[in-house]
């Protein structure tokens, strides 16, 4: 068994003067305190990467900086899926008895530590160096390609996609840590600057500074605890040129494996935390995961199904689209919010019932997928 015993999250946006290590340290300290642990009790450390401060041994750089000497430590790199991949590995490490309390931490000063162009350029390198990158793609362009194909095949419109930007912004309005807290409409999304059509500025997550962390433990440290019920991955390709057909992407494979591991059905799920780097990412993943039928995610969003008081509350902190995206920490915020919801600590964002949650992360261009089910136990 393993439990998410503590979570920590900074505000996302501008943290002028903070390094990646500063942001990681802030989030880590919050998560350890939240778990009711002392630093010295952390015996495992997993971290992601920082595009601003690349290092071949970030986990030990962090451990030394933070002042801990773990028995197990290394970095994990699967793009946007890194946070959930760390959660899965931490779960397996504590189950295997390698460590008692594994700290997973991500943080980056991606907004103020480098120019926006540098961020966009660094991320575009997930493309093939010979056959894709010379064509001048960006991450929005890779997802713009996917969006055009998906919209064509399943009859999804730009207005449909805009619903998800509006929904994530609506959720962010009540979170003080969110980078964007001004309401937007479908018309605002449609009128926003073109980035990589069909994707426009408000279809894209921002670049942010921020940090997130959580502790995964062998035994629970509080009365209401959140247990990892089961998880799985799928990796079908790296480059969009080599991606499988739209109906055979890794999310479907990962969720099928995770359902089997956790022995749950989608109908058991009460809260969803789904990767939303772009509106198209969220729409597709919701449909791949079985949280909506093909081409139906937008109408569900429009009807309030994914809203705080809807049947399947989704990313109630505002997601990457509006809470913000600081790299590895970006999607870790989804897990932090889920743990807060499941333990009844989400304040005025609290949903009625978050007893069983489905989390999903995506890295690359729908390349790497991690699905996890969490359940509340008393």
């Amino acid at each position, binding site marked *: 068994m393993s439990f998410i015993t503590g979570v920590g999250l900074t505000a996302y946006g501008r943290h002028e003067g903070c390094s990646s290590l500063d942001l990681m340290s802030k989030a880590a300290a919050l998560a350890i305190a939240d778990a009711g642990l002392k630093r010295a009790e952390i015996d495992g450390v997993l971290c992601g990467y920082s595009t601003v401060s690349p290092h071949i041994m970030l986990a030990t750089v962090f451990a030394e900086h933070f002042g801990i000497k773990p028995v197990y430590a290394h970095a994990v790199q699967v793009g946007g899926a890194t946070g959930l991949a760390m959660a899965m590995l931490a779960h397996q490490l504590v189950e295997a008895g390698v460590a008692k309390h594994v700290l997973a931490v991500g943080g980056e000063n991606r907004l103020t530590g480098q120019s926006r162009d540098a961020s966009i350029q660094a991320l575009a390198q997930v493309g093939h160096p010979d*056959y*894709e990158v010379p064509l001048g793609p960006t991450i929005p362009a890779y997802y713009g*390609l996917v969006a055009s194909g998906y919209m064509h095949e399943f009859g999804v419109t730009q207005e449909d996609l805009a619903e998800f930007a509006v929904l994530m912004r609506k959720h962010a309005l009540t979170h003080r840590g969110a980078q964007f807290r001004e309401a937007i409409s479908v018309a605002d999304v449609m009128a926003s600057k073109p980035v990589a059509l069909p994707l426009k500025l408000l279809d894209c997550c921002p670049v942010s500074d921020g940090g997130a962390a959580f502790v995964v433990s062998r035994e629970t440290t509080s009365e209401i605890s959140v247990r990892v019920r089961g998880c799985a991955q799928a990796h079908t390709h790296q480059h969009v040129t080599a991606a499988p057909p739209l109906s055979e992407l890794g999310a479907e494979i990962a969720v099928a494996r995770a359902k089997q591991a956790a022995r749950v059905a989608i109908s058991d799920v009460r809260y969803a935390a789904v990767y939303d780097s772009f509106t198209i990412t969220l729409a597709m993943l919701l449909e791949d995961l079985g949280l909506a039928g093909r081409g139906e995610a937008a109408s569900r969003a429009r009807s309030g199904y994914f809203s705080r008081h809807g049947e399947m509350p989704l990313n109630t902190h505002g997601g990457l689209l509006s809470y913000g995206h600081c790299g590895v920490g970006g999607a870790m915020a989804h897990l932090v919010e889920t743990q807060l919801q499941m333990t009844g600590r989400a304040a005025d964002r609290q949903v009625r019932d978050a007893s069983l949650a489905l989390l999903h992360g995506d890295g690359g261009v729908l390349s790497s997928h991690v699905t996890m089910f969490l359940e509340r136990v008393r």
Partner: protein
Amino acid sequence: MSERKQLADWTTGAEAIVYQSCARCGSLQYFRRSFCSACGAADPLDKRASGEGRVYATTLVCRAATPETRAHIPYNIILVDTAEGFRMMAHGDNDLCIGDKVKARFAPFAGRLIPYFEKTK
């Protein structure tokens, strides 16, 4: 390792699109390797593509990240399903639609030569 002569393609500045075909299992691959990624057999055969295909996906890039690419915006990045049966990324006319039949020429972009697809009737 391969003794076979590699065909030059656009990735090294030649006006050609080249793919590989496995002599053992018949699989096609676009990204060059010294082996077949489907069955592992060594030395897949280099073949020159006709440059004909159909548009699979498009995105009009309006925000670029380097001064060299910014000079070209907006530019249309497309995925093409080639007549030979492999998929490739390229540029194309800005008004291309999914399903359009296209044919490649080569065009300069950010100091390189790249495949550029135009609509055939």
